[in-house]
């Protein structure tokens, strides 16, 4: 229960976000599954710090989003942005602000830096997978990337 329940909540919050983002009904289950999967990975991993857990969870979500986007032939952002939302460190941001107002400088700096590190871990995870996929796409079909074509063929 301790593991299952948060995943169900993550699934349902992603469903609510999908309605806000106007995702078509047939894609909603798949986007929500991404969110639940990310949180499941986070809960199952066991590291002393949260940063590697966030990083690995984001990598798993990104891979899931890339694979699903290929299968359904839709843009990757659809799956990626919605599934990453449960990982966004909203709690960290809130507590940082609260400590700042209370004047507890040590806790403020500690929580703030930790939140920043978590945000960095998410960004790095997305960046890693996106860059690898982009590399693979260019290797597979270089002629599709018109930005390069102009320079190569004309000069």
């Amino acid at each position, binding site marked *: 229960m301790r593991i299952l329940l*948060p995943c169900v*909540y*993550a699934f*349902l*919050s992603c*469903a*609510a*976000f999908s*309605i*806000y*983002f*106007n*995702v*078509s009904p047939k*894609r909603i289950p798949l986007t929500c599954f991404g969110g639940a999967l990310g949180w499941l990975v986070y809960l199952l991993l066991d590291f002393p710090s949260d940063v590697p857990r966030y990083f690995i969870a984001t990598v798993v979500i990104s891979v899931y989003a890339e694979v699903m986007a290929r299968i359904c*032939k*839709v*843009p990757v*952002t*659809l799956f*990626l*942005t919605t599934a*990453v*939302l*449960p990982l*966004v460190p*909203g*709690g960290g*941001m*809130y507590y940082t*602000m*609260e400590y*700042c*107002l*209370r004047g507890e400088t040590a806790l403020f700096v500690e929580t703030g830096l930790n939140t920043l590190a978590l*945000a960095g871990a*998410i*960004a790095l995870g*997305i*960046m890693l997978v*996106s*860059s690898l996929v*982009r590399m693979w796409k260019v290797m597979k079909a270089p002629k599709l990337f*018109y*930005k390069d074509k*102009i320079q190569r063929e*004309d000069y």
Partner: protein
Amino acid sequence: MEQNLSSFEYQRLLNTAIDLGHFLLEAGAETYRVEESIQRVLYAYGIKHVDVFAITNNITVTITMADDTCYTRLRRIYSRGTNYQRIEDLNNLSRYICEHRPPVEEINRRLKEIYRKKTYPEWAIVFLGFAGVSFFFTLFFGGNLQDALIAFVCGALTRVVFRAMEYVHTNGFFINLVCSFLITFIALLAVQYHLAPHSNSIIIGTLMTLVPGVAITNSMRDVIAGDLVAGMMKAMEALLVALALAMGTGMALIVLGGI
């Protein structure tokens, strides 16, 4: 078909292509997707050069023909939201255009169809979207059912206030500030009158509706693709929203929380 379009028809095609990019950008697509879609569509019709520069609120396209005549169009974009259904449809349309090269009239007709396609009704966005997000994220962040119900009300109210302030063209910074102030205010009042035990869960859960998660993710993807200006603009936007949320919440905490 490819080579014998008149210069007038090329200009119409340019117009249509920039419309496609405009709709994509408005629906919240990444900058590189906008640029690549415009380029692919125009190259499909046998234009010699296509130069596209897109950032978050502006698209510039110059096309050069085989006889070195050039046409340029600039489009300023004012509103921005997130509409994945539309991105999906436009993506399919640009794929269709590259394969079949339909006449310009047909593209215009299809663009209009996509633009007028129905979204979820407003009540669904208020009660399932915003209120649902607040409800489940409050449970997710360790609240109980009472907290979640208060968050449900806060979430629905957030959307109503958000729309009302958007309607009178208030800037985004102030909208987020007011909404987060309202959320914190209601949550703290509810805790003071013993309607719910955990104010923190309610506030964090409901603020998730306003947190700029999409802007951050998309700015990352823009930076990877090399669109540094667009990426930085989105990151800056996310930072401003986060600042507004912190300020609004902080003000309510000072007013009611006795800090």
